[in-house]
């Protein structure tokens, strides 16, 4: 007989309080050039089952009703796949939960009466556009520098599955490809380093035969673009791996270091 499993973490569920009253301290900044500051907003009637972004939606409804400017924040899929929803919540990228993006974070992770700091991802390479929205196009430029393979798509394209790939390499490449380019690794790193993101992209291709052909140029170009964007240097604190919503491992950074050193010696 099929068994029903309750996949719910009761540790964080406060059964007593269905209505949470919170104090939000949110970074407000009119535009890229303006000076920003933390503004305090009390909020009531928040339910533990709401997602964090739903809580912000409620705040924005209230602000709009009052005739105030709503808080600008990034979001798109709201199911943890697009990587848009950033936010540094109570001192952690995507808040206190593990393996989730902000859209997957629920209010049950907080307690009634909590004060919650909500700040934009901070890095020179991620400038604030407005309030909590940051410009992550530096990631796009790194991708453009080498995060692809060149394939003739004239109609004779060979099916990728015709080339046998070692299972371990295929799995590792797949794990690396899980990176959604959210930028939490940069936001959480004390050095604002983009190494985990770039390492995931480099590894994803380096592990597969289709990616090997351009592997040397790829790693050199992506790293040089990463440096040009003004990200800091990795010092292996490992914070990125802990905060990454997709569990991208530090092994990828070690692989990129190897790839980079052998590519520079070759090139």
């Amino acid at each position: 007989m099929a068994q029903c499993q309750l996949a719910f973490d009761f540790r964080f569920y406060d059964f007593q309080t269905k209505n949470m009253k919170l104090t939000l301290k949110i970074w407000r900044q009119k535009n890229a050039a303006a000076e920003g500051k933390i503004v305090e907003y009390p909020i009531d009637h928040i339910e533990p089952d709401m997602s964090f972004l739903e809580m912000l939606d409620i705040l924005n409804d209230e602000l709009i009703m009052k005739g105030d400017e709503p808080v600008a924040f990034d979001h798109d899929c709201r199911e943890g796949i697009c990587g848009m929803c950033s936010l540094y919540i109570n001192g952690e990228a995507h808040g206190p939960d593990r393996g989730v993006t902000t859209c997957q974070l629920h209010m049950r992770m907080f307690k009634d009466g909590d004060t919650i700091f909500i700040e934009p991802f901070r890095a020179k390479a991620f400038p604030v556009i407005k309030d909590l929205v940051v410009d992550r196009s530096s990631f796009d430029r790194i991708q453009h520098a080498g995060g692809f393979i060149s394939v003739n798509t004239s109609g004779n394209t060979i099916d990728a599955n015709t080339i046998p790939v070692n299972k371990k390499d295929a799995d590792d490449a797949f794990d690396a490809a899980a990176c959604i380019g959210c930028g939490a690794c940069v936001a959480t790193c004390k050095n604002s380093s983009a190494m985990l993101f770039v390492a995931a992209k480099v590894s994803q291709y380096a592990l597969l035969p289709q990616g090997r052909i351009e592997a040397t140029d790829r790693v050199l170009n992506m790293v040089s673009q990463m440096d040009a964007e003004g990200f800091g240097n990795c010092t292996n604190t490992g914070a990125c791996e802990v905060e990454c919503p997709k569990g991208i491992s530090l092994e990828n950074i070690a692989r990129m270091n190897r790839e980079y050193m052998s590519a520079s010696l070759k090139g």
Partner: protein
Amino acid sequence: MAKSALLKSSIAKKVAMALSGLFLMLFLAQHFFINMTSVFNSDTFNSISHFMGNNPLVQYVIQPILVLGVIFHFTMGIVLEFKNNSARPISYAKNNGAANSSWASRNMIISGAVVLAFILLHFYDFWIPEMVYKYVDVNPLNETRYFSELVHKFESPVRTAIYCVSFLLLSLHLWHGFNSSFQSVGFNNKYSRSLHKLGYTFAIVVPFGFIFIALFHHFNH
């Protein structure tokens, strides 16, 4: 690839930091074993010290590399710290670093600065007099002076205390530095777990061993 681009790259700097760190750890390990002999047998300590102090390979090849290694490691460490700080011009109002990383890993600049201060003191206190003794005053060889010199250094409680505190910070520096250097040179595989344990053991045994040697001589002589 142009070599200048390689030298400017973040990964090359990271690998260079790791290699200089690995070299300094090797030096530390041999220094530790030599000093440890002083606890057991003063003659052994004297003869090894005499060998190290008068062997041309050690004196004219390894010693200059060591001095350059120390200078490179701390200069690069300071340069990278400034560069990394400037990669985040506005800091967070609330940051919970402890949630995802160790204190030791986030504060290498602090533990490094204390260790550097100690190295400078050690140079002033030991290395410069030793160089003057050998190469400026050109004293006659004395194969038995080393042990008494060592013991003499640990007479003062203040000096011994400074020594112990510095080595506590060195322990924190190695706690992160040992494993970090292997990760930087690209070593991350099925052996890494065992290597991490070795790293943590090294970070405890070597600095606390030095502290033990200092306290042993302080209280025994």
